[in-house]
C-alpha cells in the first residue's frame, strides 16, 4: 500500500530530532488520535535554515514528516507557508486515501512553527 518512497522515508527518516534553541516550534495532532508532531525551525535571512521533526504516528506520519522537512529546508518562509499537504503527498509518490488525515500534519506543523516564529519575532513582517 505504501510507495517505495514512503517506505524509504519511514525507514530512514531525514531531519529527525529537535533543534536546540529553535526560532519557532509548531505542535500539531493529538496522541488520542495516535498522531502528534513537533516541528522546530531555525530561520536565517528569511529562509528556513534548518527544520527538524519529532513524530508519533504511523509510517505515513513519519514519512511525511521526513519529506516535508526535507522540502522545506532552504525555502523562504513564504514559500514554506505556501507548501500544501498535496505537495508532500505527491513528492512521496502518493499516499493511501485513508492516510491523508495524518499526512496533513506535516505541512500543518511547519506552518505552525513559522507562525510561532512570527509570534516570537513581531518585527519580521509577513508578506
Amino acid at each position, binding site marked *: 500500500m505504501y510507495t517505495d518512497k514512503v517506505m524509504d522515508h*519511514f525507514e530512514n527518516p531525514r531531519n529527525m530530532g529537535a533543534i536546540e534553541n529553535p526560532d519557532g516550534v509548531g505542535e500539531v495532532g493529538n496522541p488520542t488520535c495516535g498522531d502528534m508532531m513537533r516541528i522546530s525551525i531555525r530561520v536565517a535571512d528569511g529562509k528556513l535554515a534548518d527544520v527538524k521533526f519529532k513524530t*508519533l504516528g504511523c509510517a505515513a506520519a*513519519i514519512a511525511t514528516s521526513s519529506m516535508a522537512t526535507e522540502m522545506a529546508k532552504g525555502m523562504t518562509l513564504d514559500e514554506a507557508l505556501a507548501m500544501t499537504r498535496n505537495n508532500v503527498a505527491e513528492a512521496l509518490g502518493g499516499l493511501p486515501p485513508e492516510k491523508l488525515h495524518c499526512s496533513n500534519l506535516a505541512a500543518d506543523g511547519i506552518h505552525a512553527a513559522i507562525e510561532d516564529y512570527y509570534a516570537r519575532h513581531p518585527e519580521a513582517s509577513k508578506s
Partner: protein
Amino acid sequence: MSDYRQIYLDNAATTRVSPEVFEAMKPFFAEEYGNSSTLYRQGREAAKAVATAREQVAGLINANVPEIYFTSGGTESDNWAVKGLVCGERCGAGRKHVITSAIEHHAVLETVRFMERHMGCVATVLPVDEYGLVDPQTLRDSLRDDTALVSIMAANNEVGTVEPIRELAEIAHDRGALFHTDAVQAAGKIPLDVRELGVDLLSLSGHKFHAPKGIGALYVRKGVRLGSFMHGGMQENNRRAGTLNNHGIVGLGKAAELAKKSLGAETGRQRALVEDLWKKLSAAIPEIRRNGHPEKRVPNILSVCLEGVEGEAILLRLDMYGIMVSSGSACTTGSLDPSHVLLALGLPAEKAHGSVRFSLGQESAQEDIDKVAEVLPKVVSVLREMSPTWNG
C-alpha cells in the same frame, strides 16, 4: 535487512497450511474433483472424504457428526448463527432481543448491528472488565423474556482472554435464550467440548489452525431450529446451500484431527514461549504493559501496549527484520478509532494506538522469541526517540 529468517508471529490473523493438511487436500483439486452430491463413483468418493472430515471436526469439539455444518469461514458461521436464529424461528416466536459483548469480533458485532438497524432486533452489548472478561452477573441482569440469543466469544482475538462460556451459557438457558460462541480463536488452542460447555451454536474457522482460508464450520446442537443463511440447493441437510468446498473441508478435517492430537503438548509449549517473550520484553523495555487476562487466556497470544509509539510504525519496523505481527492501532486498519477491544478494556486511546499483538502457531520456535526479544527493544527505542511524547 530483508534476508533475515521469516518470523511469523501473526497466527491469530491467519496460519500457514501445514504440510499434512496440504497433502490431504491435494487430490481434491485435479483428481477427486467430483461433486460430492452426485451419485457416480467419483462423487461418492468425495462424499466419503467429506464424511470423514465431518467426523474429525466433530471430534475436535466433541459434537455429534450431523451437528457439524461446513461454511466458508468464521465470518459466515457468525453471520449464520446470529441471523439464522434471530431472523428465523425464534424471531417468529416474538424473541427479538440479542445480547453480545463489546469485545466480539466484527463478524458478530456488525451482524448484530445490522439486525438492529434493518431487522427490528434490539441488542444489548455487555461491557467487559479490564482483563476483557464478561461478568456473569451482568449477563443475568441483561437477559429478558424475549432474549433470543446470547453470543459471547470463547476467546478474544486481540488479547486472548478466555470467557467463562459454560457459566454464561447456563445463565442464558435459564431464561430460555440460546447461546452461541465464536470459538474461532479457541478452536485448536484450548480444549473445547460443546456438551460440557452447553452451547447451542459454535463457530470455527479453518485458517486459524493451519487449514486453508475459505473454510469454516458451524456447530448446531441437535434440535436447535436455525433458519438458513445461504439459500439454494439441498446441501448440508438442506441447511447450507452451495457446492461443497471439498478440498477445504478435507483440509479442515485434517487440521482438526492434528490440532486435537497435539492440543495438550502444543498448549504447554506455546504458553511457555509466550511467557518467556513477556519476561524478556518487560525486562528490556520500559513502559510496556500486557493486555488481557494473565491466566484465563489462550496460550498463543501476547498483546502489549507501548507508551509513546504507534502500532503501525512498530509493525512495519519489525517487518524490516522479517518479524510479522499485528497491531490494534487505528492507523493499521484505516478506521479512525483504535481497536474497539482495547478501548472496551478501558485503555485510553493513546495507549491503544501503541499496541502490538504477537500470536504464535505450531511453527513458532524459541529462536523466534529470542529474535523478537532482541529486536523489539531497538525498534521501540528508535521510534521513541522520534516521538514528541517520549522524554518530551
